[in-house]
């Protein structure tokens, strides 16, 4: 207990940064769940592809530690562009290949989960076998640096040196921490406003509330679903950039555990609820860190899941309640 109190701010800030990543990935689960009522199990792979896109673009641009301010801003901006584009593309592709054919055939919801599991395996394995994939298309010479050791960790140069900006309770809050937390919240505000005010956002809410009435009112359901996947993918891409800036290491199977955590965050906040995803992500990140301070790091994930079970027992629809349509946002 004393240990937690002594390092309270340290745990809080770390919890908030990892929570921001959870929250952004959780948005993808929540959006899709709201519109389609299904767990997009392959969303973790969407995130994983984003981390690789961010990594590759830094390698391509020769990013390294100690660049000038202008260079760093350029690199980070390109990371966002690449990761968001990659994740968005993968998410839309996923919808097109794994979900739309099922919807057209009126398949039961459980089978969509199977299709998603299959798609998740395929995506993760494609990344895990990327050296083979490169040699099939005859590019292994050109891409050697990008595809080698495809089953191992791939690390990124620290392009932003963590520098303490200010100190709170003995913990030096670095520029990376601030960038991640503030960036994530800013992106969420934009998304919130998009869903609330734009035409497409209204479509998303309408389909989430009542697909049939929405169709009668002239909402193109397929298009809305596609946009939903795209938005979820772009959010996962942003999460991937923050993840790479903070952690800096990725792997072909890095998505899985993070995906489980993010889905937990979505449920924690109330699945289908955008603000719930934000809250759930931060609560989960904080709880994990405080919990590991109290009972030891090795129990971190246990704390997260026990918290989830407890919250669902007392608030069965999550902290903020479910439904993209009803609970505004």
């Amino acid at each position, binding site marked *: 207990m004393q240990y937690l109190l002594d390092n309270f701010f340290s745990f809080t800030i770390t919890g908030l940064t990892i929570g921001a990543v959870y929250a952004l990935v959780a948005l993808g689960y929540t959006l899709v769940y709201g519109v389609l009522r299904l767990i997009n199990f392959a969303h973790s792979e969407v995130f994983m592809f984003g981390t690789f896109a961010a990594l590759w673009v830094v390698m391509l641009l020769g990013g390294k530690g100690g660049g000038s301010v202008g260079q760093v801003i350029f690199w980070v901006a390109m990371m966002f562009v690449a990761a968001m584009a990659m994740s968005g593309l993968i998410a839309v592709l996923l919808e097109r290949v794994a979900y739309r054919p099922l919807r057209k055939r009126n398949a039961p919801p*459980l*089978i969509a989960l199977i299709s998603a599991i299959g798609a998740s395996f395929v995506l993760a394995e494609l990344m895990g076998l990327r050296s083979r994939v490169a040699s099939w298309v005859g590019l292994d010479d050109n891409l050697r640096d990008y595809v080698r050791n495809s089953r191992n960790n791939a690390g990124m140069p620290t392009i932003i040196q963590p520098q303490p900006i200010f100190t709170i309770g003995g913990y030096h809050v670095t520029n990376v921490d601030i960038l991640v937390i503030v960036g994530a919240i800013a992106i969420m505000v934009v998304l919130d406003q998009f869903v609330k005010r734009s035409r497409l956002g209204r479509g998303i809410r309408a389909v989430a509330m009542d697909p049939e009435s929405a169709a009668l009112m002239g909402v193109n359901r397929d298009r809305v679903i596609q946009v939903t996947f795209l938005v979820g993918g772009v959010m996962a891409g942003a999460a991937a950039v923050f993840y790479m800036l903070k952690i800096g290491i990725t792997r072909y199977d890095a998505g899985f555990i993070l995906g489980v955590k993010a889905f937990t965050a979505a449920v924690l906040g109330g699945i289908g609820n955008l603000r719930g995803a934000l809250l759930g992500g931060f609560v989960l990140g904080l709880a994990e860190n405080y919990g590991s301070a109290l009972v030891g790091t*090795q129990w971190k*994930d*246990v704390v997260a899941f026990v918290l989830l079970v407890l919250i669902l*027992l007392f608030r069965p629809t999550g902290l903020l309640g479910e439904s993209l349509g009803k609970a505004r946002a």
Partner: protein
Amino acid sequence: MSTSTPATTTTTGENQDARRPGFKERVNGLPRPVKIALWVAFALFLFLLPLLNIPFVTTEGSDFGGVLFTVATYVLVALGLNIVVGYAGLLDLGYVGFYAVGAYTVGVLSAEHASLPWLLSVPIAIGIAMLSGIILGAPTLRVRGDYLAIVTLGFGEIVRLTLVNTQWLGGAQGISDIPKPPGLELFEVPAIDWSSGAPVVDLDTTSTFLKFGITDFVPYYWLALIVIGLVVLFDVLVKNSRVGRAWEATREDEDVAELMGVPTFRFKLLAFALGAAIGGLSGALFATKSGFINPQSFELILSILFIAAVVVGGAGNRWGIIVGAIVVSYFPERFREFADFRVLVFGLALMLLAIFRPQGILPPRRTLRAKKADERQAILEEGEASA
């Protein structure tokens, strides 16, 4: 999911379907002695399968007896999970937790902290797995649908991480030297050698009937087959009883079932407990065969594969899920030579299956009936023109 997609099947197709007798009717139509003979022949075939060494079916790279044992544990797990997912309609993503509880109970009671005989530790393992099912189910079965899925997923992870972090349970090292079941050593069964192109009885390679050694896994497979037989029998009895009907009602519409006087919560809890017990039993068998267990044997991905087995086969149909379990566990072993690509191919197969066989390989007859009834309803509502 209710969508406005119009029905696409024509009525003529249904009528043809309805007239053709199903596999079950045809088997039931046979004279009784023929039926018994067929069943005995089928059972014998299953028992001798690891020794027949049928070309192409037998796995080259790994011991076929061991592979068949793995397949058998998957079948057992799928039978248990089918009660939860198929009959009661509860999505359980943490089933590996019960599997681990069963395996570790046997490990702790017969090797790590006590040395109870195998025959005693397995029933205790089943009991403790069942108890853990009740402990998990009692608070969580009040939440519905996908929330239950994530709670159970969390349970599976909690169990695994607890195993990793508890030294009393062996920690990350796990438990070794789990004793073998008592053997009988009644008679030797020779294997068949195909190396010359034609089947030849090979008297040098034999398996002793029920001698549980460490090199020959065939007796374990036999043991698992016997257990599967008993569980299937149990499954048939429960499914056709009042309990089975109560599960069906709960799955189709919980509120209506409750109104009709079905205590849905109690029946869901029962399904959970029975499923957990069978999961624990297969975990116990797994621990017995491998002789050592560690937390790595109980990763989350296993739960996903179990669910895949049930859904691929056709949730709710016990024969279907057996086929599903065989598909999920056998094919990755059989195609080991494509080691690098087998997960990729497996994933692709799951996706294709979802598109082309959305009800599973062998869907339960009730699902087919319900689907047809839905289509008829849709035609009535929307008129013949849309069909």
